[in-house]
């Protein structure tokens, strides 16, 4: 029953994307991109219990690697995606080794510093990345079928397919024995260690996989915008991805998707009325932490429950 609902919802979304005016289709594409990103962040934050303050590094890495590949090497989506995801996995593999030497507040600090180093590379390596002007003129990807991704609404379907693929893969990871061990590590690392699980290795793999998903989001992002600047790798984006996860509900499977759509929709709507979006976003951070630390879905459920009891 639930699967039918989800399938029907996705089909409705697909039709809507085809019919929507370009502005709204663009909003949904942004939502889909950040949904993939938030799914990746949540594997580490929600399921493993490691809050990273530098995940924009992998998002940026995916975007720059795919963008550079599209400009200099090949327009093929598959080659670009392999470069973007591969680059993010590699960066995650190196950064993970350093970051997992620390725990608690130091983990937050080191992921923040590592993220700033990635941002600094994008900013300073002008010859390759274009510096603060950004990387311009990234062409639409070639899927092997000519003319498929020429207009924006067609890209919508492509982004939807990417998001569904990422979501299914993430659900499979979370339900696998590996995913269950991550939950165990989140709850009680000492006991898992005593039971003979390799806690460090599980955390490391979760770190690298999470970087890979974030990189994939960057790939879909750069092909859509045709442009990426160092801002994509900045702490502002890292924090926003975290906020999306918390808003949707950390440690749930698809909560981050909900969170991503809530934040992206709000940013589009508010920016239409006022220039003060950063102010509203800041208030949103404060409100979420104080009022809905378990996410809005849990908040709504609790309210409904209370009403039902009455």
């Amino acid at each position, binding site marked *: 029953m639930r699967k039918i609902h989800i399938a029907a919802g996705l089909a409705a979304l697909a039709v809507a994307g085809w019919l929507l005016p370009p502005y709204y289709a663009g909003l949904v594409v942004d939502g889909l991109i950040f949904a993939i990103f938030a799914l990746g962040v949540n594997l580490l934050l929600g399921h493993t219990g490691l809050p990273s303050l530098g995940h924009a590094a992998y998002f940026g890495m995916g975007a720059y690697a795919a963008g550079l590949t599209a400009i200099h090497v090949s327009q093929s989506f598959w080659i670009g995606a392999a470069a973007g995801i591969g680059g993010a996995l590699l960066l995650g593999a190196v950064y993970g080794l350093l970051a997992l030497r620390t725990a608690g507040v130091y983990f937050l*600090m080191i992921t923040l*510093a590592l993220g700033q*180093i990635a941002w600094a590379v994008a*900013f*300073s390596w002008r010859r390759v990345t274009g510096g603060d002007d950004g990387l311009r003129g990234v062409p639409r990807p070639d899927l092997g079928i000519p003319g498929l991704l020429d207009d924006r609404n067609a890209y919508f379907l492509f982004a939807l397919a990417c998001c569904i693929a990422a979501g299914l893969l993430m659900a499979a990871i979370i339900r696998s024995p590996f995913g269950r061990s991550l939950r165990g590590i989140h709850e009680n690392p000492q006991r898992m260690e005593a039971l003979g699980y390799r806690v460090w290795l599980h955390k490391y793999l979760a770190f690298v996989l999470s970087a890979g998903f974030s990189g994939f989001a960057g790939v879909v992002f750069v092909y859509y915008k045709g442009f990426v600047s160092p801002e994509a790798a900045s702490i502002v984006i890292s*924090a926003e991805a975290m906020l999306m996860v918390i808003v949707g509900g950390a440690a749930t499977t698809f909560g981050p998707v909900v969170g991503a759509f809530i934040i992206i929709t709000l940013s589009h709507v508010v920016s239409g009325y006022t220039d003060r979006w950063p*102010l509203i*976003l*800041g*208030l949103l951070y404060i409100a979420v932490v104080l009022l809905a630390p378990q996410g809005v879905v849990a908040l709504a459920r609790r309210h409904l429950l209370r009403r039902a009891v009455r």
Partner: protein
Amino acid sequence: MTFWSIQILNGLSLAMLLFLLASGLSVIFGLMRFINLAHGSFYLLGAYAGLSVIRVTDSFWAALVLAPLAVAVIGVALQRLLLHRVQSNELAQVLLTFGVLLVVSDLSLWIWGGLPQTLSRPAILEGSWRWGGIVFPIYRLALTITGIVVAIAIWLFLERTRIGAIVRAGVDDEEMVRGIGVNIGAVFSAVFAVGAGLAGLAGVLGGAMLGVYPGADFEVVLQAFAVVVIGGLGSLRGAFIGSLFIGMVDTLGKSLMPDLALFTIFVPMVAMLAIRPSGLFGRA
């Protein structure tokens, strides 16, 4: 010779500015286990408040007194109303104070505009001082001396006064201090006020040296965290040594290797965290 003496003085003055920021950040962390990203907002508010005071009174000295006081009041209000609600949850602290950082930075942009501005210095601190063929800009010299004086004052306060002893005891074992009947909540607020005030003072002094502009809050809070990480979270001595290190490395890096300027802060920070997370003088 002149090149090096100027570089060293520039490094020292930046280091003392960082120390004003990092000492508060570090003691707040050590005492309350609180990660305060909004510490950068205190710097920004100090600088902008100083700007407004100078516009009204035409006196740098008035700004130097009033702006840090105003920031200290804002800091305590923030701590009492918001921050104490997320005590003991690091992730919530980071997200909440990041939200405060965004709110303050956007409000400041709204009130004071987006153009870089510099606080005007009093005539007595303008110009430079020559000694044996070496030129010292007086403002930077004065800033360096101010930093050293403040460092000694904080040290004396922590080592020689009763409240200082309570703060040190709180850093070591908060529960025990609570247990013997000290109202640690009041101590928390007092320390927060002093930390915010020092960051506001750094804002006035820095705003007259480096200028104030949107984004300065992010910049300085990241530098201050690098200092605190290198020196060791919770250690005043660490904050001083860390400030000297980051101030010197950043100044020399910018003038000798401008292409790598952005890395001079974060590479040492990562190295320290990976090798010895508790920093030079921190207690794990």
